[in-house]
């Protein structure tokens, strides 16, 4: 019976470890929040500054949207704790973002190819 008892204990432990949603919570320090908040404000100043300069071609739009993407990444990773989250959360966010990109790409591809050659 000794063996069976050990096995049960082992199974219980294994179940605990295999639990896909079990994840040690990580408390993010205020220093990180302060640093990220400050960086976001700096990027806001940068994007407004860049919009006041007349950049060649479509560069104004490219710069503004690139800065917005950087800001979004910082918010998602640190304020929304994704950097410190479980694989389940990371996969959910990643899959959602990918699906969103696919939808936008397909819509845009359809749009620009509707009148192909008739511009």
């Amino acid at each position: 019976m000794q063996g069976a008892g050990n096995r049960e204990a082992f199974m219980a432990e294994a179940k605990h470890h295999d639990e896909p949603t079990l994840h040690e919570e990580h408390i993010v320090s205020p220093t990180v929040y302060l640093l990220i908040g400050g960086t976001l404000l700096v990027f806001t100043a940068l994007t407004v500054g860049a919009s006041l300069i007349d950049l060649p071609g479509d560069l104004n739009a490219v710069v503004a949207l690139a800065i917005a993407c950087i800001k979004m990444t910082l918010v998602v990773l640190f304020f929304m704790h994704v950097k410190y989250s479980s694989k389940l959360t990371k996969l959910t966010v990643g899959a959602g973002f990918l699906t969103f990109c696919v939808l936008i790409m397909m819509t845009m591809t359809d749009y620009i190819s509707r009148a192909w050659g008739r511009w």
Partner: protein
Amino acid sequence: MDSHTVAAQTAEAAHSEHEHPAFLKHHFESVEQQRESATFGMWLFLLTEIMFFGGLFCAYLIFRNWYYPAFVAGSHSLHLWAGTLNTTLLIISSFTMAMAVHAAETRVRKALMGWMIATIVLGSGFLCVKAYEWHDEWVEHHVPGLNFSPAGFLHGTKDYPDDKLSLDMAEKTQVYFSLYFAMTGMHALHMVIGVSLLAILLFQAYGGKYVEGHVAPIENFGLYWHFVDIVWIFLFPLLYLISRHQ
């Protein structure tokens, strides 16, 4: 022994069998598992929100390409200072909300309430600036369907004397303003809902909730608040910035 007594005894036995905090539901093994499940569900909800706002962004991109001069002139009529101020307010409010989550995690009730109040104040400040802008657009006759007039886009403005659109294209600024009001309006609705939820959470925190290990509601509200911030992070350049020099 009738079945009711048995049921009551079983429930009682279940409670005495494993001591657990009152907020831990029976179908979860641990507080961490419950919290993780709630986070998972919250992210699924936020993904539907991304698709919703994404549709509006997509429409904006296509129509901007379509009626380009109208979108540029429409964008010129917005106040850059108001957009910048609102972006700053929202980013600081995201920081204070992150600090509120930290206060709940470290179980400091006064800090939790303080950061929540700061977030409410900053969020309300954002809405006030937005209301001022909307009022300004009403005064300028830029509201499609209610009081729109293309007159302001025909002869150039003080800041942009070259904004002289044909009457046909000046009418098309309505497409810009329709999307502008739809996007900023839906965003502001999310802010109003956010501030209201935060007021309820604050009231509950005042009663001693969320500083006893039950962090999930505060954390998931934080996710919602940061998501609304991200929407604005993209609305700001698209509506205010990218057409400044076109």
